[in-house]
């Protein structure tokens, strides 16, 4: 039981990180129609922005976190201008390959800057444990789950209770109509990319202390985020959360109860099964046949 509690918390924490990565992927897809294959590299950059501000520059934690997230926001803006704008009218496959190409560049640039050695990002709750039902549970894992829940709450408020969020949803539903209503579509799309990059940045900062951070961590995260998105339902925010948690839990529980070699097969098998049996995922895509 104690073991199970520990695994459950770790799985939920990992799932929260996947959920954040998947949310970043989904809000970009809903607003712009872009299937961003560089989404995993966004998370990797988030971790390494933290490595730069906390480990290398040695800034105090709050300043370091803020600095890393500001850097991620600027990166989102740059991505909007340099990758999204030139490719926005291209067919879906060109966008897939284009984001893969820029992902290769990002990964290699990180390798040049930080080297191939793995880093350990510090946590504000370094080494702290709480005992629950006989299990030693890292405070960091609990903080990740609560932090993600809080962030999702804020995101919900932004999208449903503010003018900015409603304008973003209007753009996602019908870009031309939104433009005709006088919304500044360009600025809203740019903000969507910034928001996605910041969410990925938070995911990266949370993941840093849980894994050893190395520059090749992006692709495995992207694959898990894709699986989460499909399982939850493409284009659905609750779906991204449910899918992320599912993938995180199966990874941690599957590794210890079934087989550590085949743990990833569960998530991808579930993803393919969902595509075949229920392609709209758990929560379904509201706008049909976007492809």
């Amino acid at each position, binding site marked *: 039981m104690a073991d199970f509690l520990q695994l459950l918390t770790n799985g939920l924490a990992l799932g929260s990180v996947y959920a954040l990565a998947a949310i970043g992927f989904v809000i970009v897809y809903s607003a712009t129609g872009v299937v961003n294959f560089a989404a995993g590299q966004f998370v990797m950059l988030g971790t390494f922005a933290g490595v730069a501000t906390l480990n290398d520059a040695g800034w105090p934690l709050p300043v370091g976190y803020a600095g890393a997230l500001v850097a991620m926001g600027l990166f989102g803006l740059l991505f909007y201008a340099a990758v999204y704008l030139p490719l926005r*009218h291209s067919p879906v496959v*060109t966008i897939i390959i284009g984001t893969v*190409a820029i992902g*290769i560049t990002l990964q*290699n640039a990180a*390798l040049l800057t930080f080297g191939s050695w793995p880093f350990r990002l510090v946590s504000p709750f370094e080494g702290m444990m709480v005992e629950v039902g006989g299990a030693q549970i890292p405070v960091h894992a609990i903080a990740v789950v609560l932090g993600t829940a809080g962030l999702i709450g804020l995101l919900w408020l932004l999208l449903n209770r503010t003018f900015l969020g409603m304008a973003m949803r209007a753009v996602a539903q019908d870009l031309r109509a939104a433009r005709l209503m006088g919304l500044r579509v360009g600025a809203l799309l740019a903000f969507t990319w910034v928001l996605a990059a910041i969410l990925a940045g938070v995911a990266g900062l949370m993941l840093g202390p849980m894994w050893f951070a190395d520059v090749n961590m992006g692709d495995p995260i992207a694959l898990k985020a894709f699986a989460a998105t499909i399982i939850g339902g493409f284009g659905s925010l609750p779906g991204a959360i449910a899918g992320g948690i599912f993938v995180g839990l199966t990874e941690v529980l599957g590794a210890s109860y079934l087989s550590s070699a085949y743990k990833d097969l569960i998530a991808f098998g579930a993803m393919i099964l969902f*595509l*075949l049996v229920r392609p709209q995922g758990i929560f379904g895509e509201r706008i049909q046949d976007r492809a």
Partner: protein
Amino acid sequence: MRLVLGFAALVALGAAASLAGSEYGLRLLNLAVIAAVSVVGLNFAFGYAGLITLGQSAFAGLGAYSLAILTTRLGWSPWLAAPVGIALTALAAAAVGLPLLRLKGHYLALATLGLNVSVGIVAANWIEVTGGTNGIAGIPALTLFGRPLTGERAFLWFGLSVLAVLSLGASLLHRSRYGRAMMAVRDDETAALMTGLDVTGIKVAAFTLSGAYAAVAGCLFALHVQFISPDDFGYAHSITSLSMLIVGGEGSITGAILGAVLLTFLPEWLRFLGQGYLAFFGLMMLAILIFLPRGLMGLVETWQIRRRGTAEARPATRAARPAVRS
């Protein structure tokens, strides 16, 4: 006739390179030829039938592993093992394609990507059969007229002949009613259905053919390197195959070959940049996608039109399809 001349030119060009090139250059050229076989196959699925598949290297792996297991464990001749491996892969592609090809666009892309990742996990962990991450070594070389094809130069001749024959086959299909049917499905599925085409059958056929070509490429790879491991058939290679087709120009066999050659050699040409060459490679690929939306074949066509001074341009293959959003 022009066709045959074209492929004779291809063989001649490669042959000329085989006499001039360095050993390392020849090795790369061999890898480019092998990649080209797979990309010419991918052109059936994506170029003609419009199926975005990111599972090409899973099928290459299936072909390669079948050949490796049959030759090293059961002592079969590669000449016997390769056709069996290719047939098995084609069967697998058809079996996978039948349920999977109901998906469209990026759903299909992600499903095939997931399939490729899953195949990789199995290949790395099913140690009794695949040798796990250690792979399978000691695959026998191909013997032709009693002589083993071991050197880079000898293998290049063989690889080029295979590529030429398969390209010829692809281009015959392109001009046949089956090729046109695939393109009809790509351009407008509903309209194709209305004219009485068996849309599902055509999609599965294109996917199966594409998988079979990938298996040929996989067998060539296994016989060339004589060692295979799961890394050789990871999902990244599937993405590379699709990139080659897009960069070369989808829907065109020449484009598929050009793309395969360019993307095999480009990283090597960029090595003078030192450690950062892959970063630059990514940027260059992005630039090609932005500035040459129809790939290298777009360039060739523009050049041909300018030379003829006429406006009888072939209808743009990409413009015919709806963009992500209008």
